[in-house]
């Protein structure tokens, strides 16, 4: 950190510091002052990081999304197992402070490289890999109660959108029906100050699990036939996709239907979209879509669609374990249909990917499967 060129205080006049940034800077400062305070009093410095585990997550039944509890984990400098994490937390904080002051944003990976160096006199690196810094960033987010974007950080883009909507992204007007074969790439920050919706004629949103399936729907112009938006999140949807879906749902009143793989992984993607993730429970308010529906694939689809044996993928031990775990989550626990769904899958002993429907016909999924489900309103809630 010391290698940073002169501080922004001298040349900082050019950088406009927004009110939001001021608030973030303030909380960063509090964080640092506490360290000095402790040291001066001869006490061991520590941080209280809100806990981001299942135990500190509460399912709010009336609001129908996950809320973070008040539980915190104490992170101490003078604790063998926490010392490094403590150091990393402060490093990230200092990195964010620099970004804000210089009025720049960077990717998570950028920040990782910005702060990665070997600790003086050792061969040890401050961060071993990006996963290291990513978790710490999330820790700082919850500790400061500031969002990632408020710390001038963004993630790499993941997820695409196609459909009859025109939006303004950073001042550019974009018609999402005319974005070529790849569609509109959903940015990692989808706050109203970045993206505004201008015009939308779509009636609903179909969110699919991954790019390959999305391509099928885009190529078949599903969105045109059914007057909808089709999105994907490349597996577990990143925060940008979730935030955009949330805003589309809330601001434009578009119902969200999900087409995901029939496996624990798919179930959990649905769960995250619907009530928020355990890891980032503090973001659920801004991202959860409690009304989202799960239209497929279902455990019964193997028989219902008369799929061939060859598309079965056997459940492994991990799948079984995860499925049982998901069944136990409070927000699945009370839903009989979901319990039955999970039990059926476990009974089947295999999982199904959305792509397996291609074995019937290339466009089976867009021409028959999804329209039929929508028609029959056959979905899980």
């Amino acid at each position: 950190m010391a290698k940073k060129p002169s501080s922004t205080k001298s040349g900082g006049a050019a950088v406009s510091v927004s009110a939001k940034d001021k608030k973030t800077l303030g909380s960063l400062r509090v964080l640092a002052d506490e360290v000095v305070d402790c040291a001066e009093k001869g006490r061991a410095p520590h941080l209280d990081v809100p806990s981001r585990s299942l135990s500190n997550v509460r399912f709010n039944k009336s609001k129908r999304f996950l809320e973070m509890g008040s539980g915190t984990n104490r992170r101490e400098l003078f604790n063998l197992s926490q010392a490094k994490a403590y150091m990393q937390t402060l490093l990230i904080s200092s990195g964010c402070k620099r970004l804000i002051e210089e009025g720049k944003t960077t990717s998570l990976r950028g920040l990782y490289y910005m702060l990665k160096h070997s600790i003086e006199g050792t061969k040890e690196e401050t961060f071993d890999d990006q996963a290291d810094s990513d978790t710490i960033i999330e820790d700082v987010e919850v500790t400061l109660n500031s969002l990632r974007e408020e710390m001038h950080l963004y993630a790499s883009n993941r997820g695409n959108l196609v459909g009859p909507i025109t939006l303004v992204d950073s001042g550019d007007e974009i018609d999402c029906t005319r974005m070529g074969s790849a569609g509109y790439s959903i940015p990692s920050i989808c706050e109203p100050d970045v993206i505004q919706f201008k015009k939308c004629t779509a009636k609903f949103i179909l969110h699919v699990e991954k790019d390959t399936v999305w391509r099928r729907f885009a190529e078949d112009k599903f969105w045109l036939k059914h007057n909808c938006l089709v999105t994907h999140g490349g597996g577990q949807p990143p925060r940008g996709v979730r935030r955009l879906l949330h805003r589309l749902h809330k601001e434009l009143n578009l119902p969200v239907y999900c087409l995901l793989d029939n496996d624990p992984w798919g179930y959990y993607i649905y769960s995250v979209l619907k009530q928020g993730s355990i890891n980032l429970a503090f973001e659920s308010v801004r991202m959860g879509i409690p009304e989202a529906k799960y239209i497929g694939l279902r455990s019964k689809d193997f028989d219902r669609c008369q799929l061939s044996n060859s598309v079965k993928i056997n459940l492994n031990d991990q799948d079984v374990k995860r499925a049982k775990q998901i069944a136990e989550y409070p927000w699945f626990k009370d839903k009989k249909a979901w319990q039955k769904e999970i039990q059926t899958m476990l009974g089947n002993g295999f999982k199904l990917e959305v792509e397996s429907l291609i074995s019937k016909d290339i466009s089976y999924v867009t021409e028959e499967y999804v329209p039929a489900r929508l028609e029959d309103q056959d979905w899980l809630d």
Partner: protein
Amino acid sequence: MKRTPAKSPPVRTAAKKPTEADEADEVAVIDEAETNGEAPAAEKAASRPSTKRRATAESMAAGQRDISVSEFFAKNRHLLGFDNPRKALLTTVKEAVDNSLDACEEAGILPEVWVHIEMTGENRYKVGIQDNGPGIVKAQIPNIFGKLLYGSKFHRLRMSRGQQGIGISAAGMYGVLTTGKPVKIVSCIGKKGKSHDLHYFELQIDTRKNKPEILNGKGEGEDIPFGADGDKFLAKHGVEWKAAKDGTVAHNGTSVTIELEAKYQRGRGSVDEYLEQTAIANPHVTLHYKDPDGKEYHYDRAAEQLPPEPKEILPHPYGIELGNLVTMLQATKAPTLSQFLTSSFSRVSSSKASDVCEAAKLSTRANPARIGRHDGELLYQSLQKAKIPPPATDCISPIGVPLLLKGLHHVVPAEFYVADTRPPTVYRGNPFVIETALAYGGSSAAVKISLEALTEMLGETDARTLRQFLINGFNGIGGDAADKILTEAEFGNRTSPSKLKPAEIAKLHAAMRNVNLEEGQTMNVLRYANRVPLQFQPGACAITQSIMGTNWRAYGLSQSRGGLPSGPVTIMVHIASVWVPFTSESKEAVASYPEIQKEIRLGLQAVGRKLAMFVRKRMKVKQEGERRNVFLRYLGEVAGAVNEINGRDKKKLYDMLLKVAKRKTEQADIKLDDQGRVIKRAEEDEYGDNVLIVKQDEPETPPAATEAAAAGLKKTKEKGTGKAGR
């Protein structure tokens, strides 16, 4: 007919010899009588295939004759430790030094011994050993040095280094056999007599008669005057004689010079090692040693007191055999059986004697000489059955815990020393004491060896592979450690040590220094019997077996199943007894009597428990240190980050955090013990007695022992330096 005389009789003779030293003739006669009895049967079987007799009883009888002990041992010299030239050198030094120490101690003189090995030709060395002992009476010199099985130590039950009276004369015999040069003895019995003259003998052993042959002074030896003339005379005869320091009074003592075919080699099983180990177990001895390269080593005594003189004891009834008893009965001068028992055995009181007689249905007043075989057996059995207290133990003088610690510390550099002396116990009626001492920590010789010394060692080793060289040449390097070193130095396992180029040697040297040997190090075992180091046949020895049979994992060392534990440990086991049961005449290994094994085990456990405390504590300190390190590593980063955010002074913050870190870890140092009390006793108290702890950060003079093992070979100006002077 008949067996050839070469086979069976000699073996019998040899076996009996130790008990009946000078009565060789009788024994041989008995043997002959026995063999005659069996002869016809053997003859029938043997004669069948050939019709013509190859030899007759008469012709064979012509070839049948006595075998002298000397002849027997000249042929079977491996039994005495002369199997190869290298070992011969060691055995020679060892026998001479052992005799010197025994003599000095018996005379109440603090021993000082000079050992000088000189190369006189290809594979030929001249060994000179001199002591400051009482000297030897002129008339006895030839017998002591020129006759096998002649000595004072065999017949008495008393702890001494020598036992049989074979050693030094065998060494002389070996010398004469291999080089033809006589044994040269100088002795002076000191101030009491008027004459301060030295007696000078040149001897050789007549192997056929087992009799000394005096070569000089017309078979009488020579008296040489003390002073310049005498010195000149001795110098001319190639004998060294160190005069007393004041120069006026003749220096009493004995010097023996033997020239023999030998091989000098450093490392394990070497003379250097023997002397070093002798210094450990005999802290009251001063040793001067000049090796063939002219380097001098001085092991100064660490204790000014002689060990208490061991008393001679009578045999204990439990340790006696029927045959012995019968012989004793015949030989005794006691008029009655009761008197015989009380006067010939230890711990037999007159009331005990009458109990024994009663049990054997013999009269206490019976004449011992008239007791026949049958009654003798009854007497023997009742003696074995009677409850007789164990023998007195003042016949043994153990080294004692303080001297064990001192001796070990003197020679083996380590951090932690612990010693234990077991109470005396008895095997087969012979009292014995087991002493154990252990040194833990410190780095091994391999780490400290100099490049020149390594080059030298590589040049003279006969190991075939580098791996073997490392394992055999250095204490504390086991197979694992050797492999590690070789991997580090990027050598193959089978590289020959003699063909290394200088650059490769440097590489090996660097690897030896860099590799952390602590884990791959195997325990270094020092075995002693009556203060004499045992350097060979570790596998056959009860001491090694007991060490391997002990579970060292319980004491914080790692140990593979059935092997020696590993770690930077030196363990010393000393068995002191009036009669140490060796497995062979060359006195290389202690026989495994259950009583002895049990005592060794208990002794090992005693030091092991203390070691465990130390190892655990050290582990904790180490962890604490690591802990502190981890914190220190991150403090700079933390201070930097804080500075970045709020602009506070980085250095000041760092110092403040450092202070907190130190306090935090210090607190952990004095954490509560198992019972929740604050531990703040002094370190030494914690371990109880028998422990010596050397703080590693204390400045210490370079450890002599490792230098000796690593043999820093600078030939120049080495006089009086480096050795054991701490």
